[in-house]
């Protein structure tokens, strides 16, 4: 197991290095720079700005000094927010995005898991069709539509919940979490349904029933373990997706998270901020993929055996 972990961590290094390198040169190749504005910039001013941000150095030297700073954990100064570092900006947005992602995950797992298992118990009945249609809607409905719709219903018509902000008033975390979690709830419902269906027809469950175990124990103790494995494997990438894909929800609900910085950085050609957030998110995705592989192995004896054999 430890050898497997070490090997996977080592594999992550070239992946992240490739992400940094490609992003570094790609953003600089994009037309328009961080200082281009609608108003003409005086050549002296342009030169002074480039000097302050070391853009006057040869590209390869900029790249190497960026890597040098990165190794020391310094992601550089932001172009768009003079006087603030990329580290500071990321860590001001990350806790909020992570909290939002966590709640969205809870929404997704609770609603999606319940709906999927519920559907699998009586396949091809109304009990199956209703949750599965709802999950399809959840997957298809984009968050920029679902968010304003929920706001309209629960925020403006019913006036139950705040329509924007984060942590300013009780209840303002409810709508964003549901909006962000809805799509993942849809996926989880489908995954858990198909996983459960496969397991429910397995021989060992027939044995369990034949031994006279109550249905409740058969399902909850024996079937769920195998049936929900696909969901577990999905959770890692899903959480990474929630962290990196929350910018729409953050914009709709006026939440000061990481996603908004990421998008602003791309529009402003904030080179260091684009690089910093991309690298950071790439590292997170690698980490969560690893986490889901490990937990899948932990839960599935067959996989565990394969790892042992491989290492």
């Amino acid at each position: 197991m430890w050898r497997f972990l070490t090997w996977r961590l080592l594999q992550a290094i070239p992946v992240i290095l490739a992400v940094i390198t490609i992003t570094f040169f790609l953003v600089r190749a994009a037309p328009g720079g961080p200082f281009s504005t609608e108003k003409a910039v005086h050549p002296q001013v342009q030169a002074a700005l480039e000097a302050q941000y070391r853009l006057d150095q040869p590209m390869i030297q900029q790249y190497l000094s960026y890597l040098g700073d990165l190794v020391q954990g310094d992601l550089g100064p932001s172009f768009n927010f003079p006087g603030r570092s990329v580290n500071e900006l990321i860590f001001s947005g990350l806790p909020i995005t992570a909290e939002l992602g966590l709640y969205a995950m809870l929404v997704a797992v609770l609603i999606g898991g319940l709906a999927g298992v519920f559907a699998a118990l009586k396949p091809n009945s109304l009990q199956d069709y209703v949750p599965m249609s709802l999950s399809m809607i959840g997957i298809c409905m984009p968050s920029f539509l679902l968010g304003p719709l929920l706001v309209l219903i629960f925020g403006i018509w019913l006036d139950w919940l705040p329509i924007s902000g984060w942590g300013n008033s009780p209840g303002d975390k409810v709508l964003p979490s549901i909006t962000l979690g809805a799509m993942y709830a849809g996926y989880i419902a489908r995954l858990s349904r198909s996983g459960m269906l496969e397991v429910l027809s397995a021989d060992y469950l027939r044995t369990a029933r034949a031994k006279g175990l109550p249905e409740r124990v058969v399902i909850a103790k024996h079937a769920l373990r195998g049936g929900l494995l696909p969901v577990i494997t999905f959770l890692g990438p899903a959480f990474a997706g929630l962290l990196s894909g929350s910018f729409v929800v953050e914009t709709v609900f006026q939440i000061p998270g990481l996603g908004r910085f990421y998008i602003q950085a791309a529009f402003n050609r904030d080179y260091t901020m684009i690089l910093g957030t991309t690298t950071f998110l790439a590292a997170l995705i690698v980490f969560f993929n690893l986490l889901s592989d490990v937990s899948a192995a932990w839960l599935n004896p067959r996989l565990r055996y394969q790892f042992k054999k491989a290492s």
Partner: protein
Amino acid sequence: MRVETIPTLVRSCYLASIRHKSNRALLKLVQFPTHLYFLANSPMKHTRLTLRSFLISLSVLLIASCSSGPDETRVEQGNREGVLHFGNGAEPQGLDPHIVTGVPEHHVIQALFEGLVLKNPYTLEVEPGLAASWDISEDGRVYTFHLQENASWSNGDPITAEDFRWSWERALTPALGNLYNYMLFPVVNAQAFAEGLIEDFSEVGVRVLDEHTLEVSLNEPTPYILQLFDHYSTFPVHRGTIEAFGSPTDRFSQWARLGNIVTNGAFELTEWDLNSHIRVEKRESYWDSANVSLNAIVFYPTENLTTEERMFRDGQLHRTGDIPLDKVPVYLAESPESIEIAPYIGTYYYMINTTKAPFDDARVRKALAMSLDRELLVETVLEGIVDPAYGVVPPGTLGYNPPKTFDFDPEGARALLAEAGFPNGEGFPSFDILYNTQESHRKIAVAIQQMWAQHLGVAVGLVNQEWKVYLSTQENMAYDVSRRGWIGDYVDPNTFLDMFITDGGNNKTGFSDARYDQIIFQDAPASTSREERYALFEEAERILLEQMPIIPIYTYKSKHLRVPSIQGMPANLMDYFNYKYVSLESESE
């Protein structure tokens, strides 16, 4: 169901989880909803009760959380407490007046800092700020400012003439990279200093006569100079604070952060949560604090217009920065008292690449301009809220009105095009309209494409590019016809007309005319009366419209949603407001 059910719920969830002896935390998370399902269907009475109690307590919690606190919106509370909640468009880049550019930054800096003068929001004429009064020499080239005797920085230091001299030196130092340094260029030698041609700031036309007297010498009697002294790039900054945090020209300095910043305006910074809000509170030591009615202002970075509109509808904002265009008719019909639309000092136009055939022929450019039915465009695509433009300077810019030299005339346009060698558009090469990616620009471009095809018989394509790509395409003159908008820096025709000087950085059309340059550079600055100056500007604008390197389309309007309780924030051409005039009426009174 009473609240006692909540412990029951927690207990039963706990029991349910240990009953199955699952020690896999991750799996438990997934199992939880399923447990609930089975608990609900189990024959045991107490567990059936649990699900019901769970659902009921959940809704109790939800309702309790929603109805907490008195039934008062943020705006109503703000009215009572004198706190203005302001939709500010975007997160400010920073608060250093010599580094940042942009409207959201301006709104916050205006509350925190003050320059020599302020403007009256009703007339846009200047009135005393940090300068209590000023004298102008006979030739209009030397201004002597007498500063307020009792003005102080937020840390208690007095504000002196030396603060201005030092701050302007900093604003003009090339290494700082101040994008708005040109605001000070009318001052003697300021441009030479900013370009590094002279290194000694004492050669620049700023002199400290005594602690409270500042003398400023200008190259020419620039009639709009006082307007520039209300621009944040000419504001003083606190030397001691900036030097304590490093070099004055360091853009990465921490001096303008919450806790470090020292300001001189009517408000001081008390909260700054990135992408959440900025709060400023009334500063009692401000020299004119008796005339400040607001106790605090909270700025919200409302990038998304529809979110901002919802926040307004929900009573969270007193005033929005803008309104989504499609909401305008709804508000006009349903609550006209909360919408405000006013002329704005900006022009929307298409520029033409005059270096490229066949657009190097003025007749072709005029034909394009004359075949646009602006009235129809404004009526249909733009919801009738803006005004069609036939000149580049917006009408009514401090008494200046642009000449109207042409009208919608498809016949005349066809004749001109035939004269240029393209009868009925035959043989005219197809070309593209470039615009930055935005729905409203696309709609306008589609309508114009249609009009040119219909009236001139020319084939037009549409190209949209992301903002920075679009800017770089313009910069490289790699376009045929491109959408552009220009917002005046100050209230004077010069802020529009000086764009089109030969090789001017904002020209970008290739247009060049010797007489035009002469008016902008020499004749207009040297003129002594407003009438004489405006006559010269009109001559320049006629040259421009004769050559037509740009096609004026419409004059901007500012549009806001605002609650009726805001007083002293009148609509004006600059979309300018002076927080000293603003007050909030409590509706209960």
